[in-house]
């Protein structure tokens, strides 16, 4: 029987080859190399499905394929830096998601880029190829260093793709911001990687010698670590390391306070936004935490901080989404908010819930972005929702799929988003009852629910309902199969994905075996020891507490509350905006409105910081030129001045020479005479 895992590298390399092809000979290919990319991602998708099937068949892989470098570190053994693959239920699932979304985005791009007559298509498809390749490499990474490397490459690709329209002023700036802000996070991530290597001598995710395993052993006293900084207690140090790595996560997954790059990133082509938000860059952060969850589970402090950041970001971003006028802006903030939920879940010990939401969100957010893309095509690249309206009848496919996505996003039963978000809130609740910080996160997450529903449907109504508010809206440009196709696929998924994990139903009705995702991530069909959800639960700090009516009651209450709130938000949006000619109601918000418009002035803050840094640099420059270099030049001018004094001795008058000569001789005589004591 052939070993599928030996083909895993191909999953990564196929898109990479499409990158090379598009870059090299793209201009000579039809559609600027698009087909190459489609073929490659399709191939990766099929391989991923095969891998998924194999994993379902009970196999898993954790192999080192290539040693990058190897030299003596601290502690008994060398530190080996290597590349490898780690295929377990989690990464297999992620592979499928990423390849699927990438494939659909490629297809959609045919409509969005080619049909719109964009230039530089080879560069675009090369970017997409590299982007997919990097993300896939990140997903299969078997150690933290490899993960970091591809994490960085993902950042590079986001830079290239966000800045695709480099001839305009906006995109390059947005690209720079995206890379810089995430780089700031990655700075801490890098320290984290180095710290992990220094502490454990390895960065492997899985296996006996993996760093989560070592950390666990060291904590329960059955093992020890290679190194800890002097005077720092192990538990504290592990927390610090975890938080350092978290820095990268906060940056890439656009969590507060490093979320500011994401809305700007909307400068990139819409399919790219779909890719970034749904399956690649932003997902990478959360995936990383899930990947090394066995490490975070050991540190209650880290978990609590993750949960709080998540909850806060969820609410915080949602509020900003309330007032945006551009279609993609609203979606951008919704992304930040949704990833906040995932972080909340991870922090709350809801490992499965987080992955679940990651999955569902990947589909419905990709759907929403592609739908938005379709609308933008129709609107001739005008994104202002106040110029839209009434598109419902003009573009039904887009409308219904978009609606499905929105319902999922808003968390309305029985769409995908409902199940995942409900489970997150449930986990946060049951664990939070014994943990105030977590409870805070839960409450913020809960508050975000109606807000989400509100801005989502504000968007839907403004875009599709009511009367057309502009000429283009009255006569939108039609879209072709290559746009509708992906929308349909994703629309279906947005509806059905939720059913892979119907925990509430199981809990209430007691039907066993319908919480497929739980079983899947619990190595029910096989996996790798130490990477299973129940193992995480065992080592995790949380115990469950229940409201009235025990577990079932809690489930029902929680679900009811969140659903109710969602519907509430939806109804408000209905009242306000589902009218023939809606008007702005932001005035009602009063002063808050400006704050929200300006994103709590966080961008201004960061710009201010950047300027201060430049001032410091300028000061340093002045100092360097003036003082340090001044000293150097000073030395030379001083010696020259000395020379011009010395030469004055040579007066040109010979009798003066005689005098000086005699004086010199006499001085010499006296000096030696006195020292030699001749005159005694």
């Amino acid at each position: 029987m052939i070993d599928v895992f030996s083909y895993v590298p191909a999953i990564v390399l196929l898109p990479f080859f499409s990158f090379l092809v598009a870059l090299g000979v793209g201009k000579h290919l039809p559609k600027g190399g698009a087909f190459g990319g489609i073929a490659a991602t399709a191939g990766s998708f099929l391989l991923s499905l095969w891998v998924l099937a194999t994993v379902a068949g009970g196999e898993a892989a954790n192999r080192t394929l290539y040693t990058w470098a190897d030299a003596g570190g601290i502690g008994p053994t060398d530190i080996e830096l290597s590349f490898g693959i780690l295929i377990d239920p989690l990464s297999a699932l992620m592979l499928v998601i990423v390849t699927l979304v990438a494939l659909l985005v490629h297809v959609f791009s045919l409509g969005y880029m080619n049909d719109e007559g964009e230039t530089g298509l080879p560069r675009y498809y090369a970017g997409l190829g590299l982007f997919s390749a990097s993300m896939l490499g990140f997903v299969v990474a078997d150690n933290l260093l490899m993960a970091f490397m591809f994490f960085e490459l993902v950042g590079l690709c986001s830079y290239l793709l966000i800045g695709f329209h480099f001839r305009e002023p906006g995109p390059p700036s947005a690209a720079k911001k995206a890379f810089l802000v995430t780089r700031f996070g990655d700075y801490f991530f890098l320290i984290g990687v180095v710290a992990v290597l220094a502490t454990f001598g390895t960065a492997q995710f899985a296996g006996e010698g993996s760093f989560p395993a070592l950390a666990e052993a060291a904590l329960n006293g059955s093992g020890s670590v290679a190194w800890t900084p002097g005077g720092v207690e192990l538990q504290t140090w592990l927390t610090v390391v975890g938080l350092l790595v978290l820095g990268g996560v906060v940056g890439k997954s656009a969590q507060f306070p490093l979320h500011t790059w994401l809305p700007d990133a909307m400068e990139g082509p819409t399919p790219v936004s779909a890719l970034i938000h749904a399956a690649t860059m932003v997902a990478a952060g959360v995936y990383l935490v899930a990947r090394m969850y066995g490490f975070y589970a050991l540190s209650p402090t880290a978990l609590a901080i993750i949960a709080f950041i998540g909850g806060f970001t969820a609410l915080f971003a949602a509020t900003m989404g309330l007032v945006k006028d551009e279609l993609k802006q609203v979606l951008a903030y919704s992304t930040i908010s949704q990833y906040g939920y995932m972080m909340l879940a991870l922090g709350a010990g809801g490992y499965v819930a987080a992955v679940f939401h990651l999955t569902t969100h990947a589909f419905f957010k990709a759907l929403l972005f592609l739908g938005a893309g379709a609308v933008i095509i129709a609107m001739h690249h005008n994104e202002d929702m106040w110029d839209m309206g009434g598109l419902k009848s003009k573009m039904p496919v887009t409308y219904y799929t978009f609606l499905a996505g929105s319902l999922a996003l808003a968390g309305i039963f029985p769409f995908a988003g409902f199940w995942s978000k409900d489970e997150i809130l449930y986990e946060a609740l049951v664990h939070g009852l014994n943990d105030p910080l977590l409870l805070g996160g839960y409450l913020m997450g809960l508050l975000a629910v109606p807000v989400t529903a509100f801005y989502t449907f504000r968007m839907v109504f403004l875009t599709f309902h009511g009367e057309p508010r502009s000429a283009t809206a009255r006569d939108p440009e039609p879209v072709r199969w290559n746009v509708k196709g992906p929308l349909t696929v994703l629309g279906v998924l947005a509806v059905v994905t939720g059913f892979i994990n119907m925990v509430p139903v199981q809990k209430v009705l007691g039907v066993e075996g319908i919480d497929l995702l739980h079983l899947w991530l619990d190595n029910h069909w096989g996996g790798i020891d130490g990477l299973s959800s129940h193992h995480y639960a065992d080592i995790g700090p949380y115990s469950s507490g229940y409201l009235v009516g025990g577990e079932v009651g809690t489930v029902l209450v929680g679900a009811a509350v969140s659903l109710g709130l969602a519907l509430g938000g939806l109804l408000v949006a209905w009242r306000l905006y589902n009218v023939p000619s809606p008007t702005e109601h932001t005035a009602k918000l009063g002063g808050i409105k400006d704050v929200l418009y300006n994103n709590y002035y966080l961008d201004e803050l960061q710009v201010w910081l950047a300027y201060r840094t430049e001032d410091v640099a300028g000061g340093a420059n002045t100092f360097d030129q003036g003082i340090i270099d001044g000293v150097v030049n000073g030395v030379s001018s001083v010696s020259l001045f000395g020379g011009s004094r010395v030469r004055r001795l040579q007066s040109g008058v010979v009798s003066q020479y005689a005098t000086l000569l005699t004086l010199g001789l006499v001085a010499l005589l006296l000096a030696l005479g006195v020292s030699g004591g001749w005159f005694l």
Partner: protein
Amino acid sequence: MTAVAASIPPQWYLLLATAVFCIGLFGVLTRNDALYFLMSVELMMNAANINFVAFALYYGDLTGQVFALFVIALAAAEVAIGIGIILVLYRNFGVTDVTVPTEMRW
């Protein structure tokens, strides 16, 4: 005669020679005229000669005496060349004052 010369303690010769030397030096330092300069130098050389002769006597070997003769001859040669140079100096600058030609300085 020799006895007389020998009966004088050597310090006196030293003092005499030194005195003559200093006189010559004084002349060198104070006179600006090339010729005076030259003469003063001659004086200094002769001071040396006094030493040679005197101490040749004191030590009772002839080396010093002979060397003194050498020195006189060399001094003469030096003067000859000196006069020649002073001559062209006069031709070019019209003076024998050594403080005048100061075209090259610093």
